[in-house]
């Protein structure tokens, strides 16, 4: 893999200026939020609704019409499945994820309210708000605090202790990708603690109740009610819904893993975040995140997580602003000599796959590049990792 890019060490004073410039960019952007952003998110809502309706309609056309006119079956079902998957991807990424961050709370539209929005996925919005909005975004890539570092299932960084179990991870990673929404659904239950007997059954039952309710809702909706609407021709509808959900799972998994598990992404020790300044926080977000260089279609389909760095700097600002902010963020980072981790989707995801394969086997963190860099690192105690 490529050598680790060198980041210029910053003095506390320089870090203060770095943070102030990033804060100023936030303030400049926040001051101009208005109709254009409202129109944007409403256009996304409309796109989700229309693609969803078109997808489900085509599935019915394929299922019912295909029974009488076999020529219809495959084309209509394939187009319907793809449109339904597109609808779910847009809903989960550009709409749900961003709305649940509170990015559009300033509009005060009850349907776009960050605290109550419920998305079209097996996991509950409430669990996501806790594991993602709070734990992941506050403690990004801090080992032992950010559950998203391997999701308690994968070993992606050499600092994670190796166990023979991880030899299975190339296969587990694929299963996890296919079932990603179910992984997200149970993430906050922390079943490992229950298996280990650290959580009693009554507590687990209590915590599972809302999770189970949401899972049942999704299953009944996608795998019972909508297929039943096609009557005896339910099978293509059922299969179409399953495939659409799996396609969405694979895509979201790919995008999310590219956000923090590329070769240059770093993880941090718990001790490094004690007494962290705002500048240090920004720096940790920068070093733990990676962008995807693509274009407007990739921005849209990734829910603007193609701007993972900007998203981690400003998780509560509307994602439709990230592309414009990225120009300035990148310029600020380069002036302060900080590596801005970006690359094409194949390149970044290739690095993720490499991590999954490499760290299935025992590995050790690389020695710090140079003593000077490590001593002057503002993230005292941070152990950077490289593949």
């Amino acid at each position, binding site marked *: 893999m490529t050598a680790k890019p060198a980041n210029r060490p910053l003095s506390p004073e320089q870090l203060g200026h770095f943070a102030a410039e990033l804060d100023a960019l936030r303030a400049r952007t926040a001051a101009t939020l208005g109709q254009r952003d409202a129109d944007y998110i409403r256009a996304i809502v409309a796109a989700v609704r229309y693609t969803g309706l078109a997808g489900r309609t085509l599935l019915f056309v394929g299922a019912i019409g295909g029974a009488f006119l076999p020529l219809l079956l495959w084309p209509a079902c394939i187009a319907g499945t793809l449109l339904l998957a597109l609808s779910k991807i847009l809903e989960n990424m550009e709409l749900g994820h961003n709305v649940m961050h*509170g990015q559009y709370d300033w509009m005060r539209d009850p349907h776009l309210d960050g605290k109550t929005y419920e998305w079209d996925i097996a996991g509950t919005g409430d669990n996501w*708000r806790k594991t993602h909005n709070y734990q992941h975004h506050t403690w990004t890539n801090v080992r032992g605090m950010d559950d998203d570092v391997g999701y308690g299932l994968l070993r992606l960084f050499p600092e994670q202790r190796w166990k023979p179990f991880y030899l299975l991870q190339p296969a587990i990673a694929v299963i996890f990708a296919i079932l990603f929404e179910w992984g997200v659904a149970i993430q906050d239950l922390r079943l490992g603690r229950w298996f280990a007997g650290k959580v009693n059954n009554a507590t687990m039952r209590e915590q599972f109740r809302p999770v189970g309710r949401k899972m049942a809702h999704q299953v009944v909706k996608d795998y019972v009610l909508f297929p039943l609407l096609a009557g005896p021709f339910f099978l293509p509808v059922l299969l179409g819904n399953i495939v659409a959900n799996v396609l969405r799972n694979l895509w979201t998994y790919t995008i999310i893993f590219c956000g923090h598990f590329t070769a240059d992404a770093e993880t941090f020790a718990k001790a490094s975040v004690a007494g962290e300044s705002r500048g240090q926080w920004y720096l940790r977000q920068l070093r733990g995140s990676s962008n995807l260089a693509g274009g407007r279609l990739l921005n849209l389909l990734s829910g603007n997580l193609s701007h993972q760095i900007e998203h981690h700097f400003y998780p509560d600002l509307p994602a439709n602003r990230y592309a414009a902010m990225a120009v300035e963020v990148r310029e600020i980072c380069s002036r302060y000599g900080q590596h801005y981790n970006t690359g094409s989707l194949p390149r970044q995801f290739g690095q993720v796959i490499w991590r999954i394969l490499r760290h299935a086997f025992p590995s050790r963190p690389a020695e710090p590049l140079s003593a000077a860099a490590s001593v002057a690192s503002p993230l005292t105690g941070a152990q950077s990792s490289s593949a």
Partner: protein
Amino acid sequence: MTAPARLKASRARRPLQRLVQTLVGPAAFDFWASKLHPAWSWSRPLAKIVARHSESRDSVTLLLQPNRHWQGFRAGQHLNISAEIDGIRVTRSYSLSDTPRPDGRIAITVKAIEGGKLSRYLCTTARVGDVLDLGPAFGEMALPATPGGSLLFLAAGSGITPLMALIRNLAGQGMPVSLTLLYWARSREEVCFADELRRLAAQHRGFQVRFVLTRANAVADDECQGRIGAEQLSALVPDAVQRQVYACGPGGFVDTVRTLLAAQVPQFQAEAFTPPPRLIEESGTVQVTLAASGQTLSVPRGQSLLTALEAAGLQPASGCRMGICNTCACGKRSGTTRNLHTDVVQHEPVSALRLCVSSAASDLVLDL
């Protein structure tokens, strides 16, 4: 529909409702319903503007057709109205100026206030066919179930609106009381409902109206001049202290009326409206009312609300404590806050106030 029949119908609807709710959900239902009719919604009270007419130089009456989620009101109450202006939903309270009507329509009379976001929008931009969000009706001002005796209504400016609803209600009952209305306005052009009030006064012997102008000369017989005061009041209504008094207007006006009459009259009801404070103090303490738990506490200005509430022994939900995770966000119903990061001052009610990076700049009401 009779009550049992309605209950039966709603029971029959319930499985269908559950089916629709599972298949599409309220947000998607609202999206598609609004394509069919702009004011249809799964559960939100919305209303379409069906007519608008100018009520005075700077006031407009909007006639609204609410959807089925509107729960109705009593004459004298007000409601919250929301409209989206530049992408942001702005909410203000307005009095319902008409009595409940058989066709279910409701009327609000809005005076364009200088610098007022929603009032200017409703007076100038809002068009017939536009849809507004409604809150439930609220307010204690009401007539007794069987009105009688003599009443005195004191209105200043747009304080006429809830009193107009009460006057129309009384007129609808054939004016079973002896009623005098004193209505202060700056000039004749700012008086609302003048023709209707004069017509009602001519129709009903028990109803008298006097328009009191503060910045114009009185010309008509039913006009007079001057700001409210003890002398003026006793000259215009010699038996004021024997009357049941209803007053509505700006805070200063209502305070004056209260001082002059509240202790002496058999019954006193008042509603005051006050524009949000524009002067922000930096030190001292404010009262924070927690609406859901019914507590009121005193917290220092300038301190993070999260820290202040925790210092008072509360444990509101919280996360990052730096304004990014939104865990501590809660609704703010009224009051002014300052963002500790940006120094931006927010007077508006908001749905998600981040307690960890906001400080109180005035008394607040929070949804906690």
